[in-house]
């Protein structure tokens, strides 16, 4: 049972598509307004003007800018992301290889954070004003004000450098002595992902807790919470089933926003942990004026956010039956 009409969904998809077109155009303009050209990295000082001209010709840089733009838009909509001059590979292949790595790291951080945060927020909101609430809340604010890369360095220093429990870099063991089976690979990835996930969730849960706590506190005064108690339900059932269920609705909005911030953070965190994902190539692509890669990576991130927004609407209708999309349109 979904309360999203097909017509509404179609409309939302069209709007999302247009949004992506605008983002693509912006990307094209923004990257090209940076100083330098994307063939700079291919030119060495000994090249003749003729050779440079040939490179420009090959990469289509002699065409007028509007023609380049039209070609770019056509390519993207036909799934042709072009070739990276710096990585000397198809951009699509780069993305297919790196995107899952980023998703694994930030997806698990995201999920763990959005389990811990609302749970803690539920308890703190329910017992608001208690000593426990006050101490946990102020501690979490302290955590929240720490930059994630700094926390990451702390974790690397203590857990990797001092205690030597977990690796601080890469996704796999570099020169493995074990056999590569599905099981050993999975174990190896878990071993490598533990430290970055730990340091990211160490502060990552606070955001959703900050949304959950006040809404939870608000719903404790609602008539249905009183009635649930009057029915003889246990405090736990009242808190989880009647109060928290209602307080979750604003958390869903927060989830999309925080996903955007998480991905922002990936640029820094992937470099701190030497994690071979998208965040890493964003930096090198921009520094090297590798426009095809930069464009594609930014585009994929935008796509992720747009898709998440669409999903939130669906999640909303499940969380709150009062919300209907597309009725009367």
């Amino acid at each position, binding site marked *: 049972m979904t309360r999203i009409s097909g017509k509404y969904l179609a409309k939302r998809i069209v709007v999302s598509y247009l949004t992506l077109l605008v983002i693509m155009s912006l990307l094209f303009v923004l990257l090209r307004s940076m100083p330098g050209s994307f063939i700079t990295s291919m030119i060495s000082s000994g090249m003749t003007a003729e050779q440079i001209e040939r490179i420009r010709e090959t990469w289509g840089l002699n065409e007028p800018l509007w023609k380049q733009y039209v070609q770019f838009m056509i390519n993207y909509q036909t799934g042709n992301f072009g070739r990276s001059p710096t990585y000397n590979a198809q951009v699509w292949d780069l993305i297919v290889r790196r995107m899952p790595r980023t998703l694994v790291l930030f997806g698990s951080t995201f999920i763990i954070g959005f389990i811990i945060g609302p749970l803690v927020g539920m308890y703190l909101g329910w017992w608001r004003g208690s000593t426990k609430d006050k101490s946990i809340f102020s501690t979490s604010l302290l955590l929240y004000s720490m930059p994630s890369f700094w926390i990451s360095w702390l974790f690397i220093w203590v857990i990797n450098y001092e205690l030597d429990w977990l690796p601080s870099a890469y996704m796999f063991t570099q020169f493995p002595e074990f056999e590569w089976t599905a099981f050993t690979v999975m174990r190896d990835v878990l071993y490598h992902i533990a430290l970055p996930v730990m340091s990211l969730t160490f502060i990552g849960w606070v955001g959703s807790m900050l949304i959950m706590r006040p809404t939870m506190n608000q719903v404790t005064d609602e008539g*249905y919470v009183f009635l649930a108690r009057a029915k003889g339900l246990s405090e736990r059932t009242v808190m989880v089933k009647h109060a928290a269920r209602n307080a979750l609705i604003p958390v869903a909005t927060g989830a999309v926003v925080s996903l955007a911030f998480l991905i922002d953070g990936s640029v820094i965190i992937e470099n701190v942990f030497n994690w071979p994902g998208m965040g890493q190539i964003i930096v090198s692509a921009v520094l090297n004026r590798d426009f095809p890669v930069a464009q594609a990576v930014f585009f994929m991130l935008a796509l992720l956010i747009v898709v998440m927004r669409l999903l939130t609407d669906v999640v909303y209708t499940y*969380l709150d039956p009062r919300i209907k999309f597309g009725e009367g349109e």
Partner: protein
Amino acid sequence: MTLLEVNDLSIRYAVDDGSSVHATDDVSFSVERGETYGLVGESGCGKTTLAKSLVHLLDDNGYVENGNVWFDGTLPQWSDEQGDATQSVIDDPDKPVRADGKTDLAALTNAQIRDIRWRDIAIIPQSAMNALNPVYKVGDQIVEAILRHEPETTADEAHERARDLLERVGIEPDRADDYAHQFSGGMKQRAVIAMAMACSPDLLIADEPTTALDVIIQDRILEELEKLQEEFGVSILVISHDISVMAEICDRMAVMYGGKVMESGPKDEIFGETANPYTLGLKNSFPTITSADQDLVSIPGTPPTLRDPDDGCRFRDRCPFAIEECHASHPPMYDVEAAESLGRSEEGTDERAHRSACYRIDELEQLRTDAIEESTWTEQRIESR
């Protein structure tokens, strides 16, 4: 058969500065099986607090200072097949059950009272319109109550009963699959009433059951309650500030002011032979449909704050009839009938009789005549007293 006996119940709210608010002070009343008992009074007089305290639903800072709430019924684990308390439970000095099988609800723990809630005493809260959870189907919320207290019921049976209950209060059974926002105000109210009857409680507490509704719907809700009372034989404790609601449905009632019962007894006697200045004032301030050009006279002033109150009569600051004695102590509940023939004498011990807390109980004729005059109730008159 008495279902509920509230004896000297005093409820306090703790305040940050260490003082306490006396929400009710030594309130006593009793409700018979199958009867409708009304608690009437201005807002802030303690009637809702009183009702909530019966099933321990007070806010966090509220507590019972003293008193008992004897209820004819007991915990499932303490009762035999007929639902009466077993002899061993009665004999056990640690269990708050007395010889006639009544249980002192005020002495139960939080875990214990949860078994009493809804199964024995259901409460329709003041904000019944907001009492339905917006994210669950109305029918499921009724089912939840049934399964909580009768876990042996199958889900299908419970759903069937929920639909049946809705039908009884005049809601299409199929609406059980709807959400609260798809119901009108009156329907929500009726759905909560249906939910309250889910476990056939012995006592139904209806807190301002009609307040937010228009007059036509009000009337229908009151009829609904009366119908259910006939069908289920449930006792109803109605709380309202609206004495016209009381006049319509109560058998007996208590008029509360400032945490005290001022007058109590059979409804007809309270309305016909009003015996307390506060009730007289309250009657003045409500319109009656029979006398169209009647001037409404309100009681000047506001109710007392009840924070560490002094010993005098709670109503004396607003009472045009107050005398010296009223400042010294709050009057006991005098038996009205006895006072008429014998003058002010003994405190009335029969809780069912017409009783009034007023030192001038022997001058009733005079009070009633004066109370009709608007000039009696003017501010100056009371202040220059």
